[in-house]
């Protein structure tokens, strides 16, 4: 097991090395560079361009640049962004990443939960009329042309009904005399959401083993009400009562993107759950559970859904990696200033240090997730574990 892990770790480093080189070559292959526009400005003397290029080291040969970049990368120096000059890529990512993570982690959790519920019901009601209609609905939202759908949602709820703002992440007018920066408020929001979700999760975990359905539902309800009261107390006291107004502004801007992406994202989980659950329902132990005379609901929720959850959770882990990649479209349609927009800007304006830093950030995230998935497979599934040990 240890040998396998170490071997895998070294492979990972080599893959990452190759990834850095390939990305650099790709960015270099784009014609022109970030400063080409200086040449077009008639007010600047011609040597400005040359001098800028020399300052940023872009006149050096390609091989030397890659070498320098990789050496500096492993020293922890990512250079300066070209388009936001005095700022470093790390600062920029630290500013943008929470916005993306906040939006998409909420979306993913809701989508995963509803998707799992819908998929469970789909598999259980196989052959009924409601199954057909729900399936058609989920297939529609799974294959819908996403930018078109998002624009339609924006048009309907933002423009026609006027319920939600048309993109952006705050209303600037409200923030003129704000004592807080938007990032401070955002961190408060993130902290609040995280703590609330942890409590929510704990409530579900603790009430899970209550046998009677009635009392389980009641205790969950009481837990939710307590959580609600505590959060109401939090927002009406101390510093939070001053931040409340601004936090509400950001939260209001988040509703429509969250809703839209959830509508599109839940279908994948639902369809996957349906398939795995239907395979599980053919297993013998379900027949045994039926023969024992357990209630339908119990068989569905405790026996079948629990087993069907495993592959779904795996796919959920892999969706988390694609969050940043998938955020590019959403963020440009809803003008949400997050990671996706940053990458888009870096790529289209050829800001190599920024683009490299964000690409390698995504790459590291993906590598770690694959690594964890591999290791946990080997750990959880005895068949693979035995093979590795031999």
């Amino acid at each position, binding site marked *: 097991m240890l040998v396998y892990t170490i071997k895998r770790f070294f492979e*990972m480093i080599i893959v990452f090395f190759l*990834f850095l080189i390939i990305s650099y070559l790709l960015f270099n292959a784009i014609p022109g560079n970030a400063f080409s526009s200086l040449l077009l400005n008639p007010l600047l003397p011609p040597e400005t361009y040359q001098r800028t290029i020399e300052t940023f080291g872009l006149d050096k040969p390609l091989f030397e640049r890659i070498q320098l970049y990789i050496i500096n990368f492993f020293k922890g120096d990512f250079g300066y962004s070209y388009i936001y000059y005095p700022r470093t890529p790390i600062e920029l990512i630290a500013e943008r990443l929470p916005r993306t993570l906040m939006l998409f982690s909420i979306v993913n959790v809701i989508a995963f939960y509803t998707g799992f519920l819908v998929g469970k019901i789909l598999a259980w009601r196989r*052959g009924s009329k409601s199954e057909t209609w729900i399936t058609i609905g989920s*297939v529609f939202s*799974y294959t819908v042309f996403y930018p078109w759908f998002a624009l*339609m949602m924006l*048009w309907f709820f933002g423009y026609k009904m006027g319920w939600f703002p048309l993109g952006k992440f705050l209303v600037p007018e409200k923030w003129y005399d704000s004592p807080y920066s938007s990032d401070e408020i955002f961190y408060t929001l993130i902290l609040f959401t995280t703590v609330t979700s942890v409590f929510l999760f704990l409530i579900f975990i603790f009430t899970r083993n209550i046998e009677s359905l009635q009392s389980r539902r009641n205790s969950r309800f009481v837990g939710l009400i307590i959580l609600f009261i505590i959060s109401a107390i939090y927002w009406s006291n101390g510093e939070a009562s001053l931040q409340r107004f601004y936090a509400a502004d950001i939260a209001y801007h988040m509703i429509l993107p969250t809703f839209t992406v959830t509508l599109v994202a839940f279908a994948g989980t639902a369809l996957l759950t349906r398939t795995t659950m239907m395979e599980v329902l053919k297993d013998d132990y379900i027949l045994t559970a039926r023969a024992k005379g357990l209630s339908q609901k119990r068989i569905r929720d405790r026996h079948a859904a629990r087993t069907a959850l495993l592959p779904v959770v795996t796919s959920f882990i892999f969706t988390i990696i694609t969050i940043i*990649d998938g955020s590019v*479209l959403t963020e440009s349609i809803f003008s949400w200033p997050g990671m996706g927009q940053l990458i888009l800007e870096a790529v289209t304006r050829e800001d190599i240090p920024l683009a490299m830093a964000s690409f390698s950030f995504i790459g590291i995230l993906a*590598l770690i997730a694959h690594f964890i998935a591999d290791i946990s497979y080997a750990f959880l599934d005895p068949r693979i574990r035995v093979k590795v040990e031999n």
Partner: protein
Amino acid sequence: MENNNQDRDIKATLKKNWILFKQSKLGMTGLGIVIFFGFLAVLQPILFLTNVWDEGVYHPVVGYDAEKVARTIVECPDQYPTKDYQTREDCPKVDEVNIRYLKAFNIDGDVGDIYESNVQPAPPSRKHILGTDSLGRDIFSQIMEGCQVAFVLGLISAIIGVGISTLLGTAAAFYGGALDTYLMRQSDLVLMLPSLPFLFIISAFAELQVWHLAVVLGTLGGLGGSVITIKSQALQVKVKPFVDSARITGGTRRRIMFSHILPNVAPLALLYMVFSVTGAIASESVLSFLGLLNIDMSWGIMIYLAQTEGFIFTGLKYWWLILPAGLSVTLLAGGFYLVGRGLDDVFNPRLRRR
């Protein structure tokens, strides 16, 4: 003689599978949708060749038709809402024209008169079933052109992708060792690249035509995640008894791989192929929607035009610019997905009803 028997066997299997496929209602619906769009894609060249459609009028890219529409001249009020109009956007209605607009172009007319003008985008009429776009081009013809693009792109990229991933996945499972390690790390590398920004970069230094995009998408899909799935399927086949008996009777490794393992991986590969068509159609539409492709006309470009020309927020007033293209992408992708679902029922006995 033996060949004949094999033929009959294949025919019997196909027939059995077809009967199974027919049982899945959604699969049949999907097949119907795909055939409908395939019919549209083939219909357009036929209409041009038989001169039912004049290329000058109906060509999806360079065609032009000045649609004459009689409109009532009205004067838009300054205050809203009034009896006829709720908001400023409602005036003039589709069949009306504002008198101030006419005066700005020095055209005479009084309120209540009929003014005949060329309109682009023109609403659906008998001549143009789905109306015309803002340059006077027939939307229905554009939809048909988009079908051709979607089919060519989807099928080519799916075939390339599945070809690559089936070969590599089976080889990784069968030979194992260094080859397996290399192929798995290679697919890690491909999965690490964020796909949309990667395609942006590609489109920045290469003029992407449909063919190129199909090859790029196919290769990316083929080297990425599907290798891992196909490999795990092939691993399951590899330990089956018939592979062992083939080895004992002296089959070469290549023969075992190509005539024993590959045919058993093929159903899953076919399934993957159908599902990846969905992905390819969506990717093409997204890239054209962002204006990054060098394609004359496609569904994505139709929506891109509707958005850049500002029609998307007019909502249902110009529905023929927005709805047909978006729904076509969704329907065709959904059709392929449903076909895949039907095939899944056929190949995976545990999903069947009985």
